[in-house]
């Protein structure tokens, strides 16, 4: 399939992403220090994550299990034997002078994750080169504005478990890249693997991008690959890629430089300025001198283990979307909206759909009323004061004709507001169902008072009956408009007026 930019631009943008996500463990990858975010600097450190002389790592089982879960959800092959390696480089936030990572034998490889635009504009199967498990570095802070000579180093984050997910260069537009990241994040949140909070740095993205430009002779010019760093939101990923594609095209037009003519360049995204800027890159700094980490032992993974992790994994979002469409006969768009809200909201919806027996109506209520309320309150479904049964109750009463949908919405809002039961609110608002004999009396009264409308209806203009409904609601707000209309028409037709 194609994406919008590919059809309009004179080139194809080729994008691969490298994503790091912090795993949701209580403790770090190799020691018992907390991984929680936001603690005062250097309060979650010990000899191991400080890299003190003589300290040793021991791997966190849960971190490995969560990494395994991620890889399986990304359809990766799981290596039966995996080991860790040291990636050697000097940086003050890396106290050992090496990062424990995986080099030639990552625990998983060769996966894929598809992204489908719910509006049908694109869909893309994106290959996953590998997923591996490594430790995070600490943080260096430098206040350039203050003109201070020193940088401050906080090692609380050092040793937090990270999954590195490397995609194939299969993405073809900045929009696709953003959508794919959204799908990846949703998947990892669904799996309980990571909270993927970009503000807190638990999801970080680097992008590799270049252009394929068809030449007049039919051959393809490929621009040098650029790695973009410092993108702090999905929106900035999209903007940075769009900027970079345009920049590369301009540069190619000016210089004709092609892939292989220079080493891979790293550029940082400046969100405020909306530009990427070249970063200094030393040749020797990328000689990481990987070798097997002698302080850890290898890990073997059996097929039984893989099966066990798979069994407790739950459906990924893509499968869930399909299931919702199939089971509850809702549109792809509606399924996407619901699934994107997370697993808890989906199960809330499914309860509501089961109770009402109508997935479509339940979906409308979820999207129009429940989600709006959650947005207004900036809260989650877990904090929502109503049970699905209460909403099902309202929907049921509407179906029975107790009141119409707009009245039902008022009741919903009142229940949310007051915390009272649906029955209590209905009683307080005086919405007792209007008795059939009362309804008939009301209709007769209106017919008698509106000969013009009666004549119109008799003349074949049934829509004229609408005028009676408005008057009926003014006389008694609790009447069901549909019933008023039906009864009035019947009475007029029977000529009983």
């Amino acid at each position, binding site marked *: 399939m194609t994406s919008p930019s590919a059809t309009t631009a004179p080139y194809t943008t080729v994008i691969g992403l490298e994503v790091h996500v912090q795993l949701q463990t209580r403790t770090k990858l190799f020691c018992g220090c907390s991984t929680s975010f936001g603690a005062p600097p250097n309060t979650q450190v010990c000899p191991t994550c400080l890299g003190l002389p003589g300290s040793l790592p021991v791997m966190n089982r849960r971190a490995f299990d969560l990494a395994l879960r991620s890889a399986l959800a990304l359809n990766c092959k799981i290596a039966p034997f995996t080991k860790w390696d040291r990636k050697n480089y000097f940086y003050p936030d890396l106290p050992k002078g090496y990062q424990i990572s995986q080099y030639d034998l990552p625990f998983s490889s060769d996966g894929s994750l598809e992204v489908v635009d719910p509006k049908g504009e694109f869909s893309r199967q994106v290959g996953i080169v590998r997923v591996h498990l490594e430790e995070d570095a600490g943080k260096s802070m*430098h206040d350039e504005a203050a003109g201070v000579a020193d940088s401050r180093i906080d090692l609380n984050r050092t040793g937090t478990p990270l999954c590195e997910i490397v995609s194939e260069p299969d993405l073809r537009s900045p929009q696709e890249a953003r959508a794919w990241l959204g799908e990846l994040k949703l998947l990892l949140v669904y799996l309980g693997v990571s909270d993927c909070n970009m503000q807190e740095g638990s999801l970080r993205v680097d992008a590799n991008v270049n252009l394929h430009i068809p030449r007049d002779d039919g051959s393809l010019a490929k621009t040098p690959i650029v790695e973009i760093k410092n993108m702090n939101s999905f929106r900035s990923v999209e903007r940075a890629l769009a900027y970079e594609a345009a920049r590369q095209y301009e540069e190619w037009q000016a210089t004709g430089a092609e892939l292989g003519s220079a080493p891979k360049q790293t550029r940082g995204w400046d969100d405020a300025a909306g530009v990427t800027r070249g970063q200094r890159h030393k040749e020797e700094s990328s000689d990481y001198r990987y070798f097997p980490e002698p302080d850890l032992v290898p890990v073997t993974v059996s097929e039984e283990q893989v099966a066990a992790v798979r069994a407790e994994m739950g459906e990924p979002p893509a499968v869930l979307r399909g299931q919702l469409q199939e089971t509850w006969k809702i549109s792809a768009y509606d399924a996407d909206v619901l699934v994107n809200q997370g697993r808890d909201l989906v199960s809330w919806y499914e309860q509501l759909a089961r109770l009402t027996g109508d997935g479509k109506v339940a979906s409308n209520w979820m999207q129009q009323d429940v989600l709006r309320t959650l947005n207004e309150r900036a809260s989650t479904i877990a904090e929502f004061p109503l049970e699905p049964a209460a909403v099902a109750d309202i929907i049921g009463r509407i179906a029975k004709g107790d009141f119409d949908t707009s009245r039902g919405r008022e009741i919903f809002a009142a229940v949310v507001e007051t915390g009272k039961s649906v029955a209590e609110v209905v009683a307080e608002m005086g919405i007792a169902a209007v008795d059939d004999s009362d309804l008939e009396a009301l209709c007769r009264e209106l017919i008698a008072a509106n000969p013009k409308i009666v004549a119109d209806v008799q003349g074949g203009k049934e829509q004229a009956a609408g005028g009676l409904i408005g008057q009926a609601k003014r006389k008694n707000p609790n009447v069901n408009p549909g019933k008023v209309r039906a009864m009035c028409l019947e009475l007029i037709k029977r000529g009983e007026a």
Partner: protein
Amino acid sequence: MSLSRQDVAKVGMLARLALTEADLDRMTGELSKIVEFVSQLSTLDTADVEPLAHPLDTRNVFRDDEPGTSLSTEQALASAPRHDGSCFLVPAVLGESGSA
């Protein structure tokens, strides 16, 4: 097999070891001799030999995801050449971390 002064200077930078002219002279000679000595391994045919990075055949050593004891900030910074009471201090670090 011998190393040039340039080789040695490059390795020195990679290893973050400042070298004087005298160090470079001495190291170039010494390292060349040592490298020549260890190069005798190349006479062995090891095409069919699996590398042995570690003497143990232990596998799958894990710990539970249970909190352990952390150090106080004071303890963590106790041996730091420079700190401000909450962070380690280093000469200005500009740009991004070298980490992947």
